[in-house]
């Protein structure tokens, strides 16, 4: 079903997500641009192709469900939601502002029709996502729960508690996507506390593991298609991503985990990204 997708349109959506991330962070005066930009294709493919939602306004109604566990990269998620009709484009300008639905980290309290579970403290969202998947199993509901985590997040012990639980309960309706960009706040993940190689760790936990270039749209679509067909095991997609992908002076640099670019830098970044065909800035 996904094979007929025009991947160039999804690439342009990812480009617009990156532009939005830069502009949202600059508008807010703070935020987390790097990881969000690195996951742009993940968000674009999920929201542009993969996720099946019954309602534009209430994505928690299923059949598919989505949890962003590394909540700090929510600028990319909010952008994807706005590009697929789940929230008004202009609302992106409220990110991180007082009273906004688009809180600095995703908040079910502030945005219950979209945010299944508040996230930010790492590992927690994945645990709840597995609980949602278990609940769907108990109810024999169709649909799949998709959950994104960061590679640094794998340093949290709770991730591995949940990895055990999901495999033990054979949650084949759970797809974990790891945005593996080898960057965390204090430096390269491989220097801070190594989590690579990731795939064999999950394989040894009895997960079905797929490894994919996290910026290759057709490859991602194919991985998600295959993930839905796996039975009796939860699926882990290890997506090789580049933090702040698309803006060479920001790429791979831990500084851009949580730093807001100056207006001049932002302008340069937007020039490097270029305009996105078919989309306009919010």
């Amino acid at each position, binding site marked *: 079903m996904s094979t007929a997708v025009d991947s160039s349109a999804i690439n342009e959506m990812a480009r617009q997500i990156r532009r939005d991330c830069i502009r949202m962070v600059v508008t807010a005066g703070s935020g987390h641009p790097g990881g969000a930009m690195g996951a742009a294709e993940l968000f674009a493919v999920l929201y542009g192709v993969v996720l099946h939602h019954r309602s534009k306004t209430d994505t*928690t109604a299923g059949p598919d469900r989505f949890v962003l566990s590394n909540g700090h990269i929510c600028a990319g998620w909010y952008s994807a939601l706005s590009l697929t009709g789940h929230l008004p484009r202009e609302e992106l300008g409220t990110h991180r502002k007082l009273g906004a639905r688009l809180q600095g980290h995703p*908040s*079910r*309290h502030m945005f219950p029709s979209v945010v*299944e*579970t*508040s*996230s*930010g*403290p790492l*590992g*927690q969202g*994945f*645990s*709840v*996502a*597995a*609980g*949602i*998947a*278990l*609940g*769907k199993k*108990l*109810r024999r*509901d169709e649909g799949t729960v998709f959950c994104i985590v960061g590679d640094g997040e794998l340093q949290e*012990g*709770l991730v591995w*508690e*949940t990895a*055990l*639980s999901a495999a*033990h309960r054979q949650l084949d309706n759970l797809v974990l996507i790891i945005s593996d960009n080898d960057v965390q706040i204090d430096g390269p993940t491989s220097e801070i506390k190594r989590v690579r190689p990731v795939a064999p760790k999950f394989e040894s936990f009895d997960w079905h593991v797929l490894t994919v270039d996290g910026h290759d749209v057709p490859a991602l679509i194919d991985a998600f298609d295959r993930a839905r067909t796996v039975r009796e095991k939860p699926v882990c997609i290890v997506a090789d991503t580049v933090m702040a992908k698309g803006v060479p002076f920001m790429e791979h640099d831990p500084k851009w985990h949580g730093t807001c670019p100056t207006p001049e830098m932002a302008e340069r970044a937007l020039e490097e990204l270029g305009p996105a065909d078919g989309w306009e800035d919010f």
Partner: protein
Amino acid sequence: MLSSGLRYTDATPVRDGFGRALVELAAEDSNVIALGADLTSSIRVHWFAEKYPERYIQMGISESDMIGAAAGLSMNGFVPFATTFSVFATSLAHQAVRLSVAYNNANVKIAVSHGGITVGPDGATHQAFEDIALMRCLPGMVVLCPADANQAYDATVAAAAHRGPVFLRLARGETAITPGNEAGFAIGRCYTLAKGSDVAIAATGSGVELAVAAESELRTGGISATVLNVSTIKPLDEETILRAAQACGAVVTVEEHSVIGGLGSTVAELLARRFPAPVEFVGVQDTFGESGEPREIMEKYGLTPHAVVDAARRAMDRKCR
């Protein structure tokens, strides 16, 4: 109220009332499910697990993941009871409780045994003196601390009916069935077990048994005491406590918990705001516990009827004359 309306008459572990109620709730509502973390019979959820194996989620020794899974299950319309020892749910898994249950306003019931001192010989590592404090500071968290097995049964039913997070704290040990506790159970109500005019004793959990014994001793000495069973710490029944404080002019709090952050603090916060009156605190002082038989520990750490009587006299001495 459930159809059976189970009533105990003899001293019974408080947790038994919880376990029995859960089985009956499950029969009436297929959304009621339970999760455990390798302590199934300790929290008396084995009766549920035997009868409804498909609705009992054994999470293994993973309390944080159990709380997260419970939150996720609630998002599919289930009413999950996450069960373990109090110290594990409230300290080890506090982040998951704070974020995934409280901040999400998830319809999760955190039902714990071994709240307080009575885990006994296991020692300080397993004794939870700070659990009420940790739970009551979380916005939206209902905190229930039933005094006996009948109240535990009723509190379990009330917790299931309440939409939103509930912390249900159950002692491990047996407590006497306290007369006057059979008058139904409502979240946010405290129950007057004796009415006096000299001192008001507000107690929770196993503290109620001590307060009732102290009232009798005080009466013998010519002192008339009000005894309140504060089975809901949050939301607090402020008006009942205020009326008792105003009638008596002196207050004693009694709890199997630290004097920091529990019932005593809750009552003191209320009185400081609305009716400043002398308060004396019976509870564990700012210390960890140790191994020993529950009764020995209770005595060593000042949780006896006699300690309540002494506190009552001190509170009365401090009344403005």
